[in-house]
Every structure is written in structure tokens, then in C-alpha cells.
């Protein structure tokens, strides 16, 4: 294939490329010989032979060395094995030992040897025992800190329980440590649990204590609550110890003595429920006239009323007492009483409190004691009123404050006094009826009284009693702790306050209105002043003109013209000035008030409807009108109703009343 020709052609190409020429097969030998000679100096026969012998020697040496090395290795190995074998055969062999001693000496030494062996055995036994003991010393102390997966109560006293280590995975064991359990108990627990599950309980049991609404999920959230206790070194449980510690601390806490100074706590205004003894108030029956006649000074109200019976005239009573205006005295004293002696219970409790406070103070100053005594003395008679009915006699004067208060009440009294002089009982009735009726029955009562007192003596008792009860009832109302319902007979201020209280008149922002009003007033004054000033100025000018004779020179028409011109000028100036002032100072107060045909003020919505109806010349239909009228009437009724009325339609209970009516439920709200 690659013959010499092709190689030669190739060589030409290679020469052109600048490559090394290929060796041509024909010229190969010569080239190779020359080249091999150059390359290898030991290629001659001798040298080759020499090399060969050398090689052979070398090979021989190598083989020899190898053999020697192996031999040495084998010898070493053999020696090592021998040494190992000899190591096991150290000491005397059976034959050697036996051969060494003779029988006699062996016998002599036999005992010794026996002893030695015995000793050895004893030592070994002791060691073993010790070891066993060490192992057996697994006591309660070793159990310290080990948990037991049951409740203490689960272990009954009498029986033995064998606790085994709980079967857990390695992870659990790492996490929780060793835990002991009794298989029987565990089985029992599981059984009860299964039974519980089968019971199908309600999720939420309201009767159960200390459980939330979603208590059934507690187990899922917090994990199952495991009953367990931990043993300590003495075999008792740590829980027990904890309980004991708690007990001790409790005991210690009981005997804590505070070194702080005792703070003075004011006595409560209310009695403790346990202390309260409800005394049923005895009905004070105004029994008979006989009794009253005997005990004149028993009750002043009674006295005043019953006094009419024997004398037959109210006026006589007045004169009897010999005081100019005697009848008001009881009333006044009664009202005075109200402020100090409300009722027996309250008074009693107050006295008790005072006494307690007094005891606390300990330092008893003589004047204090005296005052206290006086107070207590004065209170007891006051409950029935001042005996002689004379207001000047200060039976209930405690200090200046009460005097001041009682003085404060005076101004309202005189009007009443006149009425009361005639008939105190009648007055009490009148008071309940209202202010409007008051004047009318006054006179009638007078006449009535005279007649009845003279004519009907038998019925008097009954009436008296009724009146007395009424008066008492009224007094009770006033002493319930609520303020007395305001009446209209005490002046404009009282009326206004009552209306405000009921919400019928809205309390406006008085200050703002006042200032507005003042401003307007001021503005008007200013305006007047300016006007008068301008007028004065005009007059002056006219006079000046007249005096200067300016007018004399003019004809009548001219004079008129001049005057008109001047007036115009002046008016213009004034107007300009006024406008300026107006702009500067005038603050308009715009109020759009619409009043309907009944005189009620309409609000925006109503006013719009009203105007709309007027504009279209057509009002609402019959139903709507009726509804509106009804609403108005109700409103009026509500306004007239008492604020203290506890029925359903008053201001506070309105919503409730409305819903009750809607639901068609009857009922009265108490309290």
C-alpha cells in the first residue's frame, strides 16, 4: 500500500511543507544502521556479549538475594512461633511438678496448701458478696426523681404494686426520662377512659365548675393531662412535700403581724347585711281622741289637728298657743326635722357610727362629750317633733350650720303659712293636688272646717286618721332620699328649673346668648347716640347759617333749595357713617321659627311639610292628620306627667314602655 514511490511523493510534499521526511523502506537499513550506531554504543558483538554476561550475573545476583531474603524471613517467623509456644508452656508442667517433690514433703505441705486454697476461696466469696451487696443496695435513694405515671390515690394501701418501666420509644424516653407504671393500673385507666368516651357526654356542662365553654378542646390543645407524681429519695412523693410546705406557709401567714400604723377607715354608710335586723315598723295608729286628749304633746301634727275637736275652731287653736302665728310652727318644725331626723333606722345607724368614731379618737374632750350627750338627747324628742310647737325654742339646734340652713328655708314659708293657718290637713291635701287648685279650696276649706267641726263630731276621728295617714305618707315620700317633686308655687326660677329638669325647656347656652344680646343692645345704643349727635350737629349748623345771615340773602325758594341740599348732604354722610358702623359692629342673630296652628314650635321637617302643604293648597289626608294629632296629644300628656312617676310612659321608661306595648306585654317596672 505504502510503497516506496508513494512515500517518496509524500516526502516531496513534506519537504515543501518543511516537515521531516518519512523514512523510505528501501533506504531503511542503511539509515537505521548508521543511526543505530550513533545511538547505541554497545551494539557491537563484544559489547553485546559483555552486556549479556553482565545481565546474566545481575540476574543471578538478584535471584540469590531474593532467596536469602526469603530464607531469613522464614527463620524469623519460625523463631517467633517457637517463642509463642514456649510462652504458653511456662511454669512447671504436671510431670515436672510431681517429680520435683517427694511424697512426704507433699503431704506436709498439703495442709498448708489446703489452707491457702481455703483462704483464697473465702476471699473470693467475700468479694462476690460485696459485689452482690453493692448491686443489692439499689434502694429508695436510687428512685429519687423517677416519675410514676399514676396518681398517688390510685395505689391502695393494702396491696403490693409492682411498677415496671414504661414502654416508650427512645425519643420519648429522652424527652421525659424514665417513668414507672403498673400494668394493671394502666389497664384499668384505659378501661375507664374507654367507658368515658362511650358515655357521649355533652360538650359543655354549665354546672361543672372552673371549666370554660370550649373545655372539651383543652385536651387537644394542651395535650393529654397525665397524672403522675415524682418520687424523692425517701420514697415519699414530691407532691406531698409540696403540700406540706404549702400548709406550713399558710400557717405562718396566719400569724403575720403588720407593723404599719392602722389606717383609719371611715365606717361604711351602709350596714353589713349580716348585721341588719329588719324591724317591722309598728303601725302608728292614731288610736283615739281620748288618748290624744291625754297626751297633748305627743305629736305635733296630731296635736294641731286634734286640737280642733275639743275647741271646734281652728282659730281657737291659734289663740290657745298664744303665739301670733302658731300653726306653721309644727309644719316648719316638721320640715326642719326632715333635714336632721329622717327615720329611726338611719338615725340609729348614724348614731352608732358617730359613737364608733368617737371611741376611736379616744381623747375625750369634755366639751365634745357634752355636745355628744346634748345631741343624743335632742335627737330622741325630735323624732316626734318639738313638743311645745314653738319654733323659737331651739330644741334641735346643733350648730350654726343647721341654723343657717333652716334660715335659708324661711322665705318660701310665709305664703304657705297663711294657708296652713287655716287648715294644716287641708293644706297637705292641697299640696298633693297641685298649685292651681290651691287658692280655691282654701276658702272652701275654711267654711267646711267650721261646719264639720261644729256639726259632725263622730266622723271627725275617721277623717282625722285619714288625714294623718296622708300627711305621713307625704312625709315618707319626702324622706325616701329622692328630692321632693318640684311644684310651681315657688316662683319663676323654681318653675324654670322644674321644666328644665323634665326636659321640657332646653337649657340654652346662656352665656353666648347673653353676650349676643348685650352686643345688640350696645349697637342700638351706639346707633341712637350717633343719630342724636348728627341731629344736634345739624341743628348747630342751621343756627350758624341763620346767625351768619347767609339765609337772609337768599330768596325763599333758594333757602328751601339750600336746606334741601344740606339735608341731603347730611343724610348721605350719616348714612355712610352708619353703614360703616353697621358693617363693623352688627352681628345678626338669625332664627327661623315656625309656629303651627296650635302654637307649637315646628322643627325643620315639620315646617317644610307645612310650607309645602300651604304652597300646594292641599294638606295630608285624614289618617295622617289623625296620627299627627294623636302624637301631639301624647306628647302633651307626657309633658304633664310627673318626673318621678314610675309608670311606663315617663321620660326614662319611654322606650321600654313602647316596646312592651308593641309586644302586648303588661307589666310594671319596680324601682
Amino acid at each position: 500500500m505504502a510503497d516506496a514511490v508513494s512515500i517518496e511523493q509524500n516526502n516531496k510534499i513534506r519537504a515543501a511543507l518543511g516537515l521531516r521526511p518519512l523514512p523510505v523502506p528501501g533506504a531503511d537499513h542503511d539509515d537505521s544502521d548508521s543511526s543505530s550506531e550513533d545511538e547505541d554504543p554497545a551494539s557491537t558483538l563484544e559489547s553485546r556479549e559483555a552486556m549479556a554476561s553482565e545481565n546474566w550475573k545481575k540476574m543471578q545476583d538478584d535471584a540469590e538475594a531474593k532467596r536469602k531474603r526469603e530464607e531469613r524471613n522464614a527463620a524469623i517467623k519460625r523463631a517467633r512461633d517457637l517463642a509463642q509456644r514456649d510462652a504458653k508452656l511456662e511454669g512447671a508442667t504436671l510431670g515436672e511438678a510431681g517429680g520435683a517433690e517427694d511424697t512426704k514433703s507433699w503431704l506436709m505441705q498439703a495442709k498448708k496448701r489446703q489452707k491457702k486454697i481455703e483462704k483464697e476461696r473465702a476471699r473470693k466469696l467475700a468479694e462476690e458478696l460485696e459485689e452482690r451487696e453493692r448491686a443489692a443496695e439499689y434502694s429508695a435513694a436510687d428512685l429519687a426523681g423517677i416519675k410514676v405515671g399514676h396518681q398517688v390515690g390510685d395505689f391502695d394501701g393494702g396491696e403490693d404494686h409492682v411498677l415496671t418501666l414504661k414502654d416508650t420509644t427512645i425519643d420519648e424516653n429522652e424527652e421525659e426520662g424514665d417513668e414507672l407504671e403498673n400494668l394493671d393500673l394502666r389497664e384499668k385507666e384505659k378501661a375507664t377512659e374507654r367507658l368515658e368516651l362511650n358515655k357521649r357526654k355533652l360538650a359543655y356542662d354549665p354546672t361543672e365548675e372552673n371549666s370554660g365553654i370550649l373545655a372539651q378542646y383543652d385536651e387537644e390543645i394542651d395535650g393529654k393531662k397525665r397524672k403522675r407524681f415524682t418520687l424523692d429519695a425517701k420514697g415519699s412523693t414530691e407532691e406531698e412535700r409540696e403540700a406540706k410546705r404549702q400548709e406550713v406557709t399558710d400557717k405562718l401567714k396566719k400569724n403575720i403581724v403588720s407593723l404599719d400604723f392602722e389606717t383609719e377607715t371611715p365606717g361604711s354608710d351602709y350596714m353589713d347585711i349580716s348585721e341588719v335586723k329588719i324591724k317591722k315598723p309598728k303601725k302608728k295608729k292614731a288610736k283615739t281622741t281620748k288618748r290624744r286628749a291625754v297626751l297633748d304633746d305627743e305629736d305635733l301634727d296630731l296635736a294641731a289637728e286634734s286640737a280642733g275637736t275639743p275647741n271646734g275652731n281652728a282659730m281657737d287653736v291659734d289663740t290657745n298657743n298664744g303665739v301670733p302665728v302658731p300653726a306653721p310652727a309644727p309644719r316648719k318644725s316638721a320640715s326642719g326635722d326632715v333635714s336632721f331626723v329622717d327615720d329611726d333606722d338611719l338615725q340609729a345607724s348614724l348614731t352608732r357610727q358617730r359613737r364608733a368614731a368617737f371611741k376611736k379618737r379616744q381623747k375625750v374632750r369634755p366639751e365634745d362629750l357634752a355636745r355628744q350627750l346634748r345631741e343624743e338627747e335632742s335627737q330622741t324628742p325630735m323624732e316626734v317633733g318639738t313638743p311645745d310647737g314653738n319654733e323659737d325654742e331651739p330644741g334641735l339646734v346643733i350648730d350654726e350650720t343647721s341654723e343657717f340652713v333652716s334660715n335659708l328655708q324661711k322665705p318660701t314659708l310665709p305664703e304657705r303659712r297663711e294657708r296652713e293657718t287655716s287648715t294644716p290637713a287641708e293644706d297637705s291635701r292641697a299640696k298633693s293636688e297641685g298649685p292651681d287648685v290651691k287658692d280655691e279650696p282654701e276658702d272652701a276649706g275654711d267654711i267646711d272646717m267650721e261646719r264639720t267641726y261644729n256639726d259632725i263630731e263622730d266622723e271627725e276621728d275617721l277623717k282625722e286618721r285619714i288625714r294623718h295617714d296622708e300627711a305621713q305618707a307625704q312625709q315618707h315620700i319626702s324622706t325616701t332620699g329622692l328630692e321632693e317633686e318640684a311644684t310651681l308655687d315657688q316662683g319663676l326660677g323654681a318653675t324654670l328649673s322644674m321644666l328644665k329638669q323634665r326636659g321640657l325647656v332646653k337649657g340654652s347656652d346662656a352665656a353666648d346668648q347673653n353676650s349676643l344680646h348685650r352686643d345688640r343692645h350696645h349697637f342700638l345704643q351706639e346707633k341712637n347716640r350717633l343719630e342724636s349727635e348728627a341731629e344736634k350737629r345739624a341743628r348747630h349748623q342751621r343756627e350758624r347759617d341763620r346767625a351768619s345771615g347767609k339765609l337772609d340773602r337768599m330768596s325763599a325758594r333758594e333757602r328751601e333749595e339750600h336746606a334741601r341740599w344740606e339735608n341731603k348732604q347730611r343724610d348721605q354722610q350719616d348714612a355712610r357713617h352708619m353703614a360703616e358702623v353697621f358693617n363693623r359692629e352688627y352681628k345678626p342673630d338669625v332664627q327661623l321659627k315656625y309656629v303651627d296652628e296650635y302654637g307649637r314650635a315646628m322643627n325643620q321637617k315639620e315646617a317644610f311639610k307645612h310650607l309645602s302643604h300651604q304652597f300646594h293648597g292641599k294638606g295630608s289626608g285624614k289618617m295622617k292628620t289623625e296620627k299627627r294629632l294623636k302624637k301631639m296629644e301624647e306628647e302633651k300628656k307626657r309633658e304633664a306627667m310627673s318626673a318621678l312617676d314610675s309608670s311606663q310612659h315617663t321620660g326614662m321608661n319611654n322606650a321600654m314602655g313602647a316596646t312592651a306595648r308593641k309586644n302586648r306585654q303588661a307589666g310594671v317596672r319596680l324601682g
Partner: protein
Amino acid sequence: MMIVTVNDRLGSKATVPCLPSDTVGDLKVLVAAQIGRAPREILLKRQGERPFKDFITLGDYSIQNGVQLDLEIGTGD
């Protein structure tokens, strides 16, 4: 000296005597002289291997006597 066969299995086949010290570029020139294609359009490779680079010798590619190489068309870069 060794003889390398270059074959593209489409009809052009060349046997080239060369030395292991020749570079692949030289071989390409020799092949080009035989098959009449520009040396830069020749791409030589062993079957299933990457193409030979021009500046590396045949000895380095461990090309020996009687080896057959694949001849493909190269783009010259």
C-alpha cells in the same frame, strides 16, 4: 512512520504515511493533497470524539499505525 487512513464514507478515502511527530495541521495538508480539498475545509476526528485541533501532534492524540480517522467538512475555525 505510520500509515493513517482518512475516510468520509461518502467516497473519498485517503491513506497517508506520516510520523507521529506531525501535527494534525500537517496531516490535513497531506490529506488535502490527496483528495483535492482545501486543508482548512477538512475536519478530522475519531469516530464519536471531538475534532482534532491543528496544532496538536498525532502522537499526542495517540494515533498509531493503521488507524482510520473520520473526515468531515470543516468551517475553518
